[in-house]
């Protein structure tokens, strides 16, 4: 197992190296740049001064290598647009809000989605099942942006029950600035999980070992909680990985529309402004989180199902 984990971590290093190279290549070869004049043309000398100051007069691979050599020492550079602040400090400032938004959204949506899925499966083809599946279908099909639009129009502008974030980290804000975005961010997850859980549970409930457990006279709660749930966990864990990665890297739509200073918004702004140090850092963090969450999911499989062996052993 330890050998397997070390192998995967070594693979992670290779992945990050490749991702960083590709990102540098794309950033530097996309038309335009971070310091294109906006109105009046600058003289050639003035423009050369700017490019020299930020190292943009060098080819992309030189800048990539410079970045790699500093990054391994923990120096991820300074933003072009916040010259007094290190990229890592900016990211830390934004990440807290995204983490809180994501954690709260997962905290309410994941258990609720699983519970509703189980109830729908157990009450299959009843009115309860139909209501739950309809609501779940609604939440996964309606575009999140339209939900945001209507909720802002009704609850923030119309009724003024809630407000936009005032630019400070989410954890320093009163609940009326984050309850609505947390609810909307989790809504899609509830729907997807409900549908996933219902389908998985129905599949498991039809298995022979469930019928056997019932035939043995076990209580329903034991049959569901011990035998059915455990076998349903593998597909749930599979989707929990991307849900978690999405939660901790921030939701661009939700953060922008509710003025939340989070990573999603931060990343999008950096793309608009071609703030290369921020773009590369955010991409690397995203790739790391996704790769590690996949590794954790693989490890979780071995705990849930003893038949699963990692690293090629059977």
């Amino acid at each position: 197992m330890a050998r397997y984990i070390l192998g995967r971590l070594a693979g992670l290093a290779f992945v990050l190296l490749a991702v960083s190279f590709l990102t540098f290549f794309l950033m530097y070869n996309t038309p335009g740049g971070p310091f294109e004049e906006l109105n009046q043309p600058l003289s050639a000398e003035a423009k050369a001064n700017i490019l020299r100051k930020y190292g943009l007069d060098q080819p992309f691979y030189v800048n990539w290598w410079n970045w790699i050599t500093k990054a391994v020492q923990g120096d991820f550079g300074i933003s072009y647009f916040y010259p007094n602040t290190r990229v890592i400090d900016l990211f830390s400032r934004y990440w807290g809000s995204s983490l809180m938004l994501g954690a709260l959204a997962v905290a309410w949506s994941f258990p609720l989605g699983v519970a509703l899925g189980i109830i729908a499966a157990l009450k299959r083809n009843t009115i309860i099942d139909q209501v739950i599946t309809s609501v779940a279908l609604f939440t996964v099909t309606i575009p999140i942006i339209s939900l945001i639009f209507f909720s802002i129009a009704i609850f923030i502008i119309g009724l003024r029950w809630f407000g936009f974030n005032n630019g400070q980290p989410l954890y320093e804000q009163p609940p009326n600035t984050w309850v609505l975005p947390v609810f909307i961010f989790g809504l899609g997850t509830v729907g997807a999980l409900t549908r996933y859980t219902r389908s998985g549970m129905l599949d498991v409930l039809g298995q022979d070992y469930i019928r056997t457990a019932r035939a043995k006279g076990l209580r329903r709660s034991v049959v569901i909680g011990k035998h059915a749930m455990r076998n349903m966990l593998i597909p749930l864990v599979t989707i929990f990985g991307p849900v978690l990665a999405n939660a901790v890297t921030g939701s661009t739509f939700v953060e922008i529309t509710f003025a939340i200073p989070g990573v999603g918004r931060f990343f999008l702004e950096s793309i608009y402004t071609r703030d290369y140090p921020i773009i590369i850092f955010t991409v690397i963090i995203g790739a790391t989180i996704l790769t590690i969450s996949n590794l954790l999911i693989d490890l979780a499989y071995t705990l849930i199902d003893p038949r699963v062996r990692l690293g090629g052993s059977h």
Partner: protein
Amino acid sequence: MSMSNSRKTQGAKLNRRQMLKIMGTGSVVMGLAACSQAATPAPAPTAVPATAVPPTEAPKAMVNSVGKELPPDAAPPEQQAYVIAGSGAPGQFMDISANVYNRASLSDLYGIPLTRINKDFELIPGSAKSWKVSDDGNTWTFALRNDIMWSDGTPLTADDFVATFRYMADPKSAYDFTWYYSKGSGNIKNFDEAVGGSVPVEELGVRKGADDYELIFETSEVTPYLPRLFVYAMPLQAKALAAHGPAYNSNPDTSVSCGPFIVKSFSPTRVEVAANASTADDFKPFLERMIAVPFPDGFQAYQAGQIDQTVPGNIAQVDAVLNDPQLSADATPDVGDFRTDYFFFDVTKPPFDNLKFRQALAHLLDRDSIIQFVTKPLLARPAYSFLAPGFPAANGEALKDIQQYNVELAKQLFAESGVTVDKLVLQVRADVFFGAEIAQVYADSIKQNLGIEVEVKSVPQKDFMADLLKRTADGKPDTTIDFGYISYGMDYLDPSNMLGVMKGSDLGGRHTWNNKQFQDLLAEAGPMTNIDERTKLYQDAEKLMVEECAFVWCLHRTPVNLWKPYIKGVPMEPGKINTNRGVAWPGVSAFNGAASEIYIGNNVLEYRKSIP
């Protein structure tokens, strides 16, 4: 639409019946009071012990934390907070002299520029109380006020301005607005040479005069509009610049100010500044604080009652303003920065090198319909020339016929041009006001009347400018945009600024229309001191530009600002050019004094629940 706003409005206003009731009751009470006074003889004067009745005191005027007396209709100091949505664009610099395009919200409040403009766009003194020019027109002497202090207790002196200009010209600074003081604009002696590294910054044409409060500028050619250009001449403090670099004002620990405000807290997503007690009395603000939060949609934040001023950003928001009585009452169109939106051609390439073809296209732009149906009349006026009404040397009315919408004439000119072309590509800078919609209307008109297919492409701002200003390795213009739509607004209130943009790519301008006669007229007008003759030359130059049809003028913007009814002060009163509310470009800043003059009225609590 803000339902609560409507309710508030209803709550605040009295209906006709209530008004009659109050007036009736008031009349009865006043009548009774008058009768009783008339019926009662005046009491004989009696000696009253001095201690029995305290002397009547006039209501005590409120004074804010920097010792400035608030107007009688002002809210108490704790409510004197002005909240805006901020620009939303990232930026850390707080001073225009440190960096222009990466400034944060609430920048330019930490110094007093050499000159300023008032709400009628008239030039008024700033940190310079007076100025004079030498007989040859090349040496300017500015006399600085000696009562403006930095917040660390040191006075603002000529040394600060010298350090500021040296910083801007220093190649290591990589200042992004060097064109402003270069040849053709500010003409500061040796500025271009210093930027290019061939001359040390110590040889710049900016130096201290006879004492700490005399500042001397030398120009490479006569520049009569230099004081107008110096509305942007905002000082950095020499000491802070040397100790902490140009972004010292984005850190409250290193921030130092001689302007109306000082930085209290700074983060990329929220900036808060507080009134500065150290500046001269006439620059001290009524406001206690200003707060900027980069709400992605300022209009929504305004409707939610979280900010005090905004600008509608799209057609749906404009419709909301037009259809909502409260928002309509808040709305004020003004001239902004005298911005003009226009189409342009690369006249070096066919078919746009054909004058008759360009003239044909110019006569196909139906400006009135565009303004009626796309932008709405509230937001724009039709443009038949570059200089907007109110701008010095503006002459739009006289030039109106040259590019008038005339389909028959356009068809005739097209036939005479001999051009055969099936398809054109019209590139629109994505940030231009209703750019894609307006370009599509124009494209349809060309297709319908000349049978030429026009593909409209919206291009992000940075990419568009890179393509427009592209040059070959040896520095020759090499634009890849043949037909485009873009805008320009003034940087300083002089025709040399607006018309200088059109001087041609050979001379460092934006576009490939390099007309020698136009360039000569600009060169001749620039140094002239006789205003009438100068204006005439600029008008001749503009007429030539309109006739040549390298540009098709579309509209002059009249941006609409929404101001909450509790924002008060001199800038909110009508001006000569901004006839609704005078508050002039560039908004609430130290460039125009508005930051020192606006205040929060005592009706604020009717609208604002809390300060974000």
